[in-house]
């Protein structure tokens, strides 16, 4: 089962790379055929804006190229999100069906014990912070809160993981270029962050991904757990951001990089509920509704 999924993942990555290179060779074909009459940059813009301009020379190639770009922009995008929504919903339903409300908690104790324990923590803090200034009290509470979360338990991996996941969520949704495409089709757009900031977040994300990769290779405890799938999934997540960075800075052929970026990104979106990326919905539960050393706001299950 493990090897089958590895093969599927490897196949999708190979397909994305192949379709990217196919688009590249076709773009190069169109470019060389048109450059006899006009200069190269004009040919590129003509090829991307007006498919009819070069169809007589390379009808099949042009059809394939336009098809791939449009397919990635339209149906494949919708398909990816439909797969994502279906799988995501199924995971949440399954998770909730497997859990019960936590029976532990103050409410199960006798009234006497409940009264004895209520307010103890705030009284303790009041005792420990007596004589401090307002700012000192705030800092004390902040430090106490941080110490009890993942940042206190494992600061380095906590911060790197936070940078990685912030980039993962903010950049794709708040990128100006994505929102232009989005508002074109839906007349609705999210607030955007400046391009250079998105660029920095992407670099941070790629650096964090590199850290995770090195950690997986050199930390014995992580290495013992790692399988081919773990490396593939890390590369798969980093790939849309690496290609986005290349497209933003016009490294290699722009259109090839862009088509690869779109297809790899759609593969990642569709793969989220069916792979280890499916830990996404559990973030909310584990960080805010369970008591744990890694929680941000300890609580108990109520569903």
């Amino acid at each position, binding site marked *: *089962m*493990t090897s089958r999924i590895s093969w599927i993942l490897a196949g999708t990555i190979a397909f994305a790379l192949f379709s990217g290179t196919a688009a590249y060779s076709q773009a190069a074909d169109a470019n060389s055929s048109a450059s006899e009459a006009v200069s190269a940059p004009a040919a590129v813009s003509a090829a991307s804006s007006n498919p009819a301009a070069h169809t007589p020379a390379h009808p099949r190639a042009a059809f394939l190229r336009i098809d791939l770009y449009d397919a990635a922009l339209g149906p494949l995008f919708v398909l990816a999100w439909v797969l994502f929504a279906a799988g995501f919903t199924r*995971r949440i339903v*399954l*998770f909730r*069906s*497997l859990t019960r409300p936590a029976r532990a908690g103050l409410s199960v104790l006798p009234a006497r014990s409940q009264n004895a324990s209520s307010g103890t923590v705030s009284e303790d803090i009041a005792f420990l912070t007596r004589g401090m200034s307002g700012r000192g009290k705030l800092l004390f509470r902040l430090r106490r809160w941080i110490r009890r979360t*993942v940042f206190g*338990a*494992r600061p380095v*991996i906590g911060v790197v993981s936070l940078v990685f996941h912030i980039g993962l969520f903010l950049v794709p949704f708040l990128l100006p270029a994505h929102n232009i495409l989005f508002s074109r089709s839906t007349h609705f757009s999210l607030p955007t962050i400046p391009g250079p900031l998105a660029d920095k977040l992407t670099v941070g994300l790629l650096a964090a991904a590199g850290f995770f990769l090195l950690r*997986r290779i050199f*930390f*014995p*405890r*992580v*290495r*013992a*757990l*790692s*399988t081919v799938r*773990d490396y593939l999934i890390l590369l798969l997540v980093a790939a849309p951001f690496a290609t986005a960075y290349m497209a933003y800075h016009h490294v290699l052929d722009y259109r090839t990089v862009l088509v690869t970026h779109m297809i790899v990104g759609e593969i990642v979106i569709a793969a989220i509920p069916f*792979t*280890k990326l*499916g*830990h996404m919905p*559990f*973030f909310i*539960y*584990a960080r805010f509704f*369970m008591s*744990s*050393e*890694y929680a941000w706001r300890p609580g108990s299950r109520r569903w």
Partner: protein
Amino acid sequence: MSPTNTDAKTLARINRIVDARKDMIRLSLQACVHCALCAESCFKFRESGGDVTCTPSYKAINSIGRIWRTRGRLSDEEYEDIRELAWDKCVLCMRCYCPIGISIPSLIAAARGACREKGVMRSYSTARNA
């Protein structure tokens, strides 16, 4: 793969144990990102000076994970390995924590249940067993 030595009846009993928890096992094994952040929560891991096979997720993946993937068709030596992981390297103290909330003790308890059906378990009759 080494030959299995489990008759059909035992396999059926093992799979009844596993199937009763199959959604939990599948969801947990799929959601585990192999981050090894659970390592330090295990006192066996700390006491052994960082023995990687004492990492809670390693124990879960290599006990119930193997039984789950092979539907219990494992050789005697492999069951012996699982016995070591599920009994000798884990005391089910339930103090391990997972950053995404997987219940690792539930997984190891399921592995123990499946092993007992096979007759592989901790024996208290001999003095030296650990």
